[in-house]
C-alpha cells in the first residue's frame, strides 16, 4: 500500500502542487491577518479540476506553509502573521534584535519541519486509535484540560504570575461578549448585530500585537531622529546540526503537545505553541533560566514545533471520523469531499492509496519547504533593515486589511484598532499580552465545556472526578501549583540569603 501510494506520487503535477502550496502558504502566513483558512478557501475553486492527490497536496501544503510563514513576520517584525506564531515572536524577535534574525528563522524552519513530520507520522500510523482517544474527551475532560492549559500559561509562562493571571481573566471576560453558548441569547452586544459573534480572534491578534507595535514606535519616536535609528547588523546565520540536536527533547515534547492538542476539537494551534514555550522555559531552568525572553533558541524551536505539529493532529479526527475540529480542517474536509474522498470511517478503507499518497506527499513537502524557506530568508532578513517610517505604515495597512477581510465587516476594524490601543497601554505598563490572547481563545470554550458538563451531569460536580481523564488533569493542575509555589519560595529564600550575605 505504501509503495502503491509512493508510485502515485510520481507525477509532475504533485510536485508542482506541493511546491506551489508551500510557497503560497508561507507567503500568506507571513502577512498579518491572512491565515490558512482564507488561503485554503480561496484555492479550493482552483483545485476543482485537478486530480485528487495534487489537489489535496496543494491545500495541505498551504496549511502547513501558512502556519510556518506566520513565524517569519513574528521573528523579523515582532508582528505574528498568524495567531499561532505569537509565541515565536517573544524570543524570535529578541534574537532578531541581536542580529540573529537569520538564525532564528532557520531554527523556526527546522523546528516547523520537525513538527510537521512528527505529526504526519502520527497521522499515518495512529489515526484510528488517536481518533478514538479524541472521542473520550467529552465536556468534563475538556473543561479540566482547558484549566490545565491556563494553569501552565500562568505558572510557567514567565514574568509575574499575578500579571499573567490578571491578563488571562481579562481575556476570559472579553470572551463573554457575544451570544451565550448555551442559551443562545446575546450578551453585552448593546443590540449591535455585529457583536453577536463576539470578538474575532484575527482582529484582536492583529490589534494586540501588530497595531500596538505601531503605536509603540509612534510614541517612541521623539528621542531619536529617523536616520539615527540603529539597524541591527546581520550576523552569520548558520545553524549547525549539533545545535538542533541539542534541542531534540524540547522539539519532541513540543511536537507531542502540538499533535495531542491538535487532535482535540476547537483549541487550535496558538495554545499548544504557548504551552510548549512555557514548558521549554521551565525545563531550561537549571541551565539558562534568564535567556528566555531575551533570545533563547529553544524559545523559538518549541512553539514552532508545536504549532506545526497541530496540523497533523487536527487532521486525525477530520479524516478518520469526518469530524473537523476547527475552521481550517472544516474547509479541508470540504476539499476532500469535493475530490470524492469523503472523510470518515471508510476513507482509509476505500481510498487507502490516495490517502497514503497524500500523507507521503506531505512528508516529502518538507524538502521544498526547507529549500524555499532558506531561499526566502536571504531576502526576508533584509526586512529588518527597512526604516520604521516605511515599515510601520505598511504594517498599518496590512492590519486594517487583515481585520476587515475576516468578515468583511467594519466592526472588526474597530475591534482591531481598539485592541491596538489596549495592547499599547498594556505593553507600556509592562503587562504580558500572550495570556490575554490565550484567555480570549479559551474563555468561551471553557465556559461552554463547563456548562455542558454540568448539563449532562444534572448539575453534579461529581462528573469531574468520575472521569479518570478529568481527575488526572485536576491532580496535575494541583501538582503544578504546588511545584510553582515551592520553587517560588525556594528562590525567594535564596535571594534573601544572598541579600543578607551581602550586608
Amino acid at each position, binding site marked *: 500500500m505504501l509503495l502503491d501510494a509512493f508510485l502515485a506520487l510520481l507525477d509532475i*503535477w504533485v510536485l*508542482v502542487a506541493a511546491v*506551489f502550496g508551500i510557497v503560497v502558504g508561507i507567503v500568506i502566513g507571513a502577512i498579518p491577518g491572512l491565515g490558512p*483558512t*482564507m488561503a*485554503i*478557501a*480561496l484555492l*479550493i*475553486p*482552483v483545485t476543482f*479540476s*485537478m486530480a485528487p492527490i495534487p489537489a489535496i497536496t496543494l491545500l495541505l501544503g498551504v496549511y502547513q506553509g501558512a502556519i510556518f510563514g506566520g513565524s517569519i513576520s513574528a521573528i523579523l517584525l515582532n508582528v505574528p502573521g498568524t495567531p499561532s506564531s505569537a509565541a515565536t515572536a517573544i524570543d524570535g524577535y529578541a534574537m532578531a534584535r541581536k542580529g540573529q534574525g537569520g538564525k532564528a528563522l532557520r531554527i523556526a524552519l527546522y523546528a516547523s519541519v520537525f513538527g510537521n513530520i512528527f505529526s504526519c507520522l502520527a497521522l499515518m500510523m495512529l489515526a484510528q486509535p488517536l481518533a478514538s482517544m*479524541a*472521542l*473520550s*474527551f*467529552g*465536556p*468534563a475532560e475538556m473543561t479540566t484540560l482547558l484549566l490545565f492549559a491556563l494553569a501552565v500559561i500562568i505558572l510557567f509562562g514567565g514574568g509575574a504570575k499575578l500579571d499573567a493571571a490578571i491578563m488571562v481573566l481579562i481575556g476570559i471576560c472579553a470572551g463573554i461578549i457575544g*451570544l*451565550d*453558548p*448555551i*442559551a*443562545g*441569547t*446575546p450578551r453585552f452586544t448593546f*443590540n449591535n*448585530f*455585529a457583536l*453577536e*459573534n463576539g470578538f474575532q480572534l484575527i482582529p484582536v491578534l492583529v490589534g494586540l500585537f501588530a497595531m500596538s507595535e505601531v503605536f509603540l514606535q509612534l510614541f517612541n519616536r521623539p528621542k531619536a531622529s529617523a536616520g539615527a535609528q540603529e539597524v541591527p547588523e546581520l550576523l552569520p546565520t548558520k545553524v549547525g546540526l549539533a545545535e538542533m540536536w541539542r534541542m531534540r527533547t524540547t522539539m519532541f515534547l513540543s511536537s507531542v503537545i502540538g499533535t495531542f492538542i491538535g487532535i482535540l*476539537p*476547537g483549541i487550535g494551534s496558538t495554545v499548544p505553541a504557548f504551552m510548549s514555550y512555557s514548558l521549554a522555559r521551565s525545563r531550561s531552568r537549571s541551565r539558562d533560566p534568564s535567556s528566555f525572553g531575551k533570545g533563547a533558541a529553544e524559545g523559538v524551536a518549541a512553539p514552532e514545533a508545536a504549532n506545526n505539529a497541530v496540523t497533523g493532529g487536527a487532521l486525525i*479526527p477530520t479524516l478518520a*471520523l*469526518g*469530524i*473537523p*475540529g476547527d*475552521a481550517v480542517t*472544516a*474547509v479541508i474536509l*470540504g*476539499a476532500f*469531499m*469535493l475530490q470524492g474522498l*469523503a472523510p*470518515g*470511517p*471508510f476513507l482509509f478503507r476505500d481510498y487507502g492509496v490516495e490517502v497514503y499518497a497524500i500523507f507521503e506527499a506531505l512528508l516529502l513537502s518538507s524538502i521544498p519547504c526547507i529549500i524555499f524557506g532558506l531561499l526566502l530568508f536571504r531576502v526576508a532578513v533584509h526586512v529588518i533593515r527597512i526604516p520604521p517610517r516605511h515599515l510601520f505604515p505598511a504594517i498599518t495597512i496590512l492590519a486594517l486589511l487583515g481585520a476587515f477581510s475576516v*468578515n*468583511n*465587516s467594519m466592526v472588526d476594524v474597530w475591534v482591531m484598532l481598539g485592541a491596538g490601543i489596549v495592547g499599547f497601554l498594556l505593553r507600556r505598563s509592562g503587562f504580558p499580552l500572550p495570556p490575554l490572547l490565550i484567555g480570549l481563545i479559551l474563555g468561551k470554550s471553557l465556559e*461552554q465545556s463547563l456548562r*455542558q458538563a454540568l*448539563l*449532562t451531569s*444534572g448539575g453534579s460536580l461529581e462528573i469531574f472526578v468520575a472521569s479518570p481523564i478529568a481527575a488526572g488533569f485536576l491532580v496535575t493542575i494541583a501538582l503544578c501549583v504546588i511545584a510553582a509555589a515551592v520553587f517560588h519560595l525556594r528562590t525567594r529564600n535564596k535571594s534573601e540569603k544572598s541579600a543578607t550575605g551581602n550586608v
Partner: protein
Amino acid sequence: MSFSQFKKLTLALAAGVVGLTALFASAEEYPSRPVTIVVPYGAGGTTDISARKLAAMAEPLIGQPIVVENRPGGSGTNAMRSVAAAKPDGYTLIATTSSPLFVTPALRPVGYDPVKDFVPILNYSGPFHGVLVKADSPYQNINELIEGAKSGSTLTYGTAGAMGGAHLAFTSVSRETGADLQHVPFDGGAAATAAVLGGHVNISLVPAYRDLVQDSQLRLLAVLDGTRDPDFPDVPTLKESGYDVEFPSVVGVVAPAGTDPAIVSKLEQVFTQVAASDEYKAFMAKLNQPVRIMTGEELGETIARNLETYRALAKEMGQSK
C-alpha cells in the same frame, strides 16, 4: 493547472457566446451585468461550495457572470440583513438556509423579516437531520427512546447550537410527551456528533451522519425532516412516528422583496434547470448533500409556516423578546 485555465477560458467563451445570443433572443434586458449571490457563511463550507457550483453552472444559461460573495457572521443573519436592504433589481441574491430564514428570526430581533423582506426563488438542497444514538445504545427505535426518557431517567441530546431548529423540535417533543430530555448545545454539528460517539450525550440531532451509521458506529432512529432520507428509506420521520413536529432543512435562493416577478421566474427556471441536472446531482452526492428542489412558492410557504411554529414554540419557552 493549465487544464483548469483552459477550462475557464472555454467557459468564459461559452458564456460570452450564450450571452450574446441571449441578448438578442430575449426581450428582457435582465441580466445585463454580473449577478451577485451572497453566501451567509464562510468560504469552503458546504453551503458555499454548493452555491458556487450552482452559480458556475447557471452562468452560461443567464449569459452573465455570477459572483459568489461570502458574508459570514451572526449565524447567517448579517448577510440576510444586508441583502434585505439591497436594491431589488435581481442583481443581488442570497443562497441561504433554515437557520437565518426561520429559526433565528423567531427567537430574537435580527433586523429583517424573512417573509416580508424577501421573495423566494427556489430551494435546491438541505441536509437531513437525524436522531442518532450510539450503536450500543439500548434504544432500537424512536418510540423506545421516548419511552426510556419518560420512565425516570434523563436523556441528554446534543445539537449544533443553542436555540437551533433541532433544539426547538426536540423541545416540542419533550413537551408533548413529557419525556425528560435535557438539551446540551455544542459548537457545530461535528462537535455534537463527536459527543454522541464518545458517549458524553445519549442522543445527537445532527446532519452528515451517513458514513458513521453505515459503519455501525451510530444508529439512526428518525429524521427531523418532513420526508425520509433516501439513503435510509426504512427510517421514519418524527411525524410518521407520531410526534407532531418537523425541522425542515432548506437551502435555497431568495431575492430582496420587490424584485420584478419576471426576473424571479426567469431565475427560478434557470436555477431549477441547473439543480435538476445530473451533473449537479453528482456534484452534490460527492459533498454528501441531497438535491431537494422546491418551487419558490413552496419555499415561501415552508418559511412562513415554520416561522410561525418556531415563534410559538419560542414564546412557550420564554425565549422570545
